[in-house]
């Protein structure tokens, strides 16, 4: 049976090469089917691609908080937004773009507000043993992929948005897709005055005022080239962004007209990949060069306008990545995956004493296959050499059981051991950087139950999972007697929790209903058993959508539970962040090639804080017009 399947797949693959038909797209799908199996996908969740396309004008931070189990800590629109998986922190969320780590080597984090969904085509979340191929994702990884497009002809997609606070967005995708070539460019510009009204409860007396110095402008450009020949594929992509953002003051400080804070963050991420398939496997060699400029300015002025302070923090990072990976069927259902990766990260910063660099050479191997008919096993092992010294051996194991008598039911369990190198800021920031820091070391056990089934017009997808992680040598910056901060391996952090995901679909006549939601319980404590700051015990989201003919109505809910802002066991009410629930509505209609959409964000005008004393907008509106050829 399996051989027959392989044969069919091969036929598809050959057909794909030989013909100029729509079947071509099947190549990648079949290749996936060869090399992926149950245990490999056990600890991952793919974001719905139709949803990604619909929501392509929002930043990734908003997508994740509204549609995934990932928690986002945000400073508000245009402000830094970092992701936390399973109660860990932003530094423990690894972001991979086509397999390359895009976490800034200086800070070790990714600002998800600077990743527009528009620049992505496929987003998958992985956790636990799913993160085994790379170091750093102690909480999880966000995998952003470019996908293949052949035989689609002209590509033209234009989208213009306008919303409250003078927020403009222009998005264009243009190109041509031949049977074996693709040339495509994505470009966008997004800007906002971001001068929303809010109730400032940080001043005496409380006062309704407008947010100041929060405007931003972002540009992006992504040219892409794909060429397919025989059983090979060459891809060249360049992801470029420029962003200029002002940083608003915290609520008590808003009357300081003599201070200005802003950031300039530009980057270019370039990659070239060569992939070739054969009947039982594939090999991919890829190379990337990233440059990232992160500049931060803090200026304060005297009453007559002379600059008295100028913090001008400049970080320029150059990163080279080389990856060679091979997939090979070995025996019966058993497959092997191997990867060798070399990363060179270099940061030039006026906060360091000279230019600092790090080499990481990583060797990774995985085997996956059936132990019993319903039982899949995946074992991985990685050894990294960080600056030519071994960081240790990091194994993972995943077991997937597909229930024999309950169709669509799967049970997965995993164990993983991984590490995270200190960021270059942790090591070399002047003053305070601590070159003696050890890497953080994390072990996770997790499991989930999946149920995916269609009953005629009704579809259901459910997942219930639990995890337990222990991270040793957790790095924290602490103030010292010298009055500057020093990072140290201070604590062991225990994170455990549960995740629930449900997605329902129902189609009847011209009506199409769908409902999905996530709920996460994350308990993360240090050795004193005190919940870490800014990690809510509960957060949840829900999404409901109704489609009828060319109409589309959707509702999104996001809920964030109470958060503490200090390590006090009982937070004082003034510094405790209350839970909040936001509701968003969108109504759209397709008219031939056009889609018009009207959105109301924060419909109930909830007054809330995501971070202590950071203003957040109330109700806002947005209208968008989309043309697709």
């Amino acid at each position, binding site marked *: 049976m399996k051989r027959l399947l392989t044969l069919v797949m091969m036929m598809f693959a050959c057909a794909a090469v030989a013909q100029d038909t729509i079947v071509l797209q099947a190549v990648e799908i079949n290749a996936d089917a060869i090399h992926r199996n149950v245990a490999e996908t056990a600890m991952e969740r793919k974001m719905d691609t139709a949803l990604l396309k619909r929501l392509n004008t929002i930043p990734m931070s908003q997508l994740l908080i509204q549609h995934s189990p990932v928690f986002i800590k945000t400073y508000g629109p245009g402000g830094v937004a970092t992701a936390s998986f399973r109660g860990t922190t932003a530094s423990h969320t690894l972001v991979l773009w086509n397999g390359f780590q895009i976490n800034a080597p200086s800070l070790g984090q990714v600002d998800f507000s600077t990743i527009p969904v528009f620049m992505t085509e496929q987003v998958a979340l992985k956790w636990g043993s799913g993160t085994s191929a790379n170091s750093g994702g102690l909480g999880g990884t966000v995998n952003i992929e470019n996908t293949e497009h052949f035989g689609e002809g002209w590509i033209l997609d234009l989208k213009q948005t306008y919303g409250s606070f003078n927020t403009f967005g222009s998005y264009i995708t243009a190109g041509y897709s031949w049977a074996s070539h693709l040339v495509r460019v994505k470009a966008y510009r997004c800007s906002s005055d971001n001068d929303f009204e809010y109730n400032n*409860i*940080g*001043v*005496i007396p*409380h006062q309704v005022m407008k947010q100041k110095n929060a405007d931003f402008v972002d540009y992006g450009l992504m040219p892409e080239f794909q060429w397919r020949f025989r059983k090979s594929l060459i891809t060249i992509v360049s992801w470029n962004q420029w962003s200029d953002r002002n940083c608003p003051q*915290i*609520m*008590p*400080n808003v*009357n*300081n007209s*003599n*201070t200005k804070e802003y950031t300039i963050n530009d980057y270019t991420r370039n990659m070239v990949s060569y992939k070739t398939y054969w009947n039982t496997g594939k090999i991919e060699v890829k190379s990337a060069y990233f440059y990232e400029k992160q500049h931060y300015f803090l200026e*304060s002025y*005297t*009453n007559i306008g002379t600059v*008295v*302070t100028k913090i001008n923090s400049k970080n320029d990072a150059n990163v080279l990545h080389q990856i060679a990976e091979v997939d090979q069927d070995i025996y019966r259902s058993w497959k092997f995956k191997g990867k060798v990766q070399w990363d060179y990260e270099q940061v030039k910063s006026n906060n360091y004493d000279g230019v600092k660099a790090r080499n990481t050479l990583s060797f990774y191997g995985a085997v996956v296959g059936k132990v019993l008919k319903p039982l899949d096993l995946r074992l991985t092992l990685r050894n990294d050499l960080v600056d030519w010294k071994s960081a240790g051996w990091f194994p993972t194991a995943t077991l997937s059981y597909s229930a024999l008598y309950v169709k669509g039911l799967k049970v997965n369990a995993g164990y993983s051991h991984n590490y995270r190198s200190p960021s270059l800021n942790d090591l070399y920031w002047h*003053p305070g950087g601590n070159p003696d820091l050890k890497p953080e070391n994390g072990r996770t056990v997790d499991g989930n139950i999946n149920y995916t089934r269609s009953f005629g017009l009704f579809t*259901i997808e*459910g997942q219930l999972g639990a995890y337990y992680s222990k991270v040793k040598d957790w790095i924290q910056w*602490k*103030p*010292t*007697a*010298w009055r*500057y901060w*020093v990072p140290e391996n201070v604590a062991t952090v225990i994170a455990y929790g549960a995740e*629930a995901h*449900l997605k329902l679909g129902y189609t009847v006549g011209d009506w199409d209903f769908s409902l999905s*939601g996530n*709920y996460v319980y994350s308990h993360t404590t240090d050795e004193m058993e*005190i919940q870490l*700051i800014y990690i809510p015990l*509960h957060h*949840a989201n*829900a999404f409901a959508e109704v489609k009828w003919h060319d109409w589309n109505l959707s509702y999104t*809910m996001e*809920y964030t*539970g*109470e958060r503490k*802002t*200090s*390590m*006090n066991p009982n937070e*004082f*009410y*003034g*510094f405790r962040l*209350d*839970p*909040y*629930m936001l509701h968003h509505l969108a109504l759209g209609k397709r008219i031939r090639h056009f889609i018009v959409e009207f959105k109301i964000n924060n419909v109930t005008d909830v007054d809330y804080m995501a971070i*202590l*004393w950071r203003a957040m907008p109330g109700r806002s509106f947005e209208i968008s017009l989309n043309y697709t050829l």
Partner: protein
Amino acid sequence: MKKKLLFLAVVLSIAFVSCKKDKSDPTPPASPYRGVFVLNEGTFTYANSSLSFYDPVADTAANNLFFRVNHAPIGDVGQSLAKYKNSLYIVVNNSKYIYKVDANSLLYQAKLKGFSSPRYMLTVGNDKAYVSDLERTGIWVVDLSDFSHKKFIETGNTTEAMVKVGNEVFVTNWSNYYTSGETSNKTVQVIDCQNDELVDEIEVAQEPNSMVVDKHNHIWVLCSGSYEGVQDPALICIDPVTRTVIKRFDFIPGVDYPSGLAVDKSGQHIYFMNGGYGTLNVYKMSVEAEQVPETPFIVSESKVFYSIKVDPTNDEVYISNAKNYVMNGDVERYSASGEFISKFEAGIIPSYMLFNY
């Protein structure tokens, strides 16, 4: 299926319920305040600075008084306190303003902004106060009668600790971080506080962080030494009349980092902290001593000592412990001979203490 829907419904209803948490606080703060106010810095950029009060007679403490009375935070990094007439002044460093509150009720009275990085406020008589600034090269003169800016005395260096002897104010030039190293960080400047004029400058050692006046009316200046470049931690004694250094005790460069000078009621003993991170001990020294003490007065025992103040009524020594800087710290109370008396919980990074009797 039904169970999952039910589960979701439960989650949603919990969410709705918990949204409506009451923010009222039933505990009225104690008043009048006879004892010590403790200003807690809070975490930088979090604006969770707070005001605590401890009554040594009743051995009771109350926290978050400012917020509880005024329903708003003090701001970002509460730096120091000053009292004048019946008002308490709270200098808020990274919020760049000074709050004036009623010293009995702690009710908000006024706010004075326009500072760059205000540090300490010293009343110099005639409804006048000086405010030092970490970023500006000089001293702000504040009129306390209407709580307004009066003038700015340009001194060429950023300013930190201040003491008044006679009609002169001595101010340390602690930092040149914000002036790109272009100004002095190893001098004490002398200002005539009747004419608000800079009259002299005395060279001490790198980073003079704190200052007290002893029973001989001599000024003690504690210099931590820089963390980079020249490291010359020293304790220096100045004669304010001749404006010369009359005593100098050097610490071990690169090892010692002394700070937090305090003086007792009679001006006979001074106290300071010295050591490294997590080993910052408290030392007590007679102003007549010929060398700095080798044996600590109080050993930190892994506590993170942060500031010292001596009760002017009974010479009891109050030492704050910032713990891990992200949770409420303690203030420990010792007798003049070093016996532990009691301790109380304050806020995050308890720093400035003001005795109010």
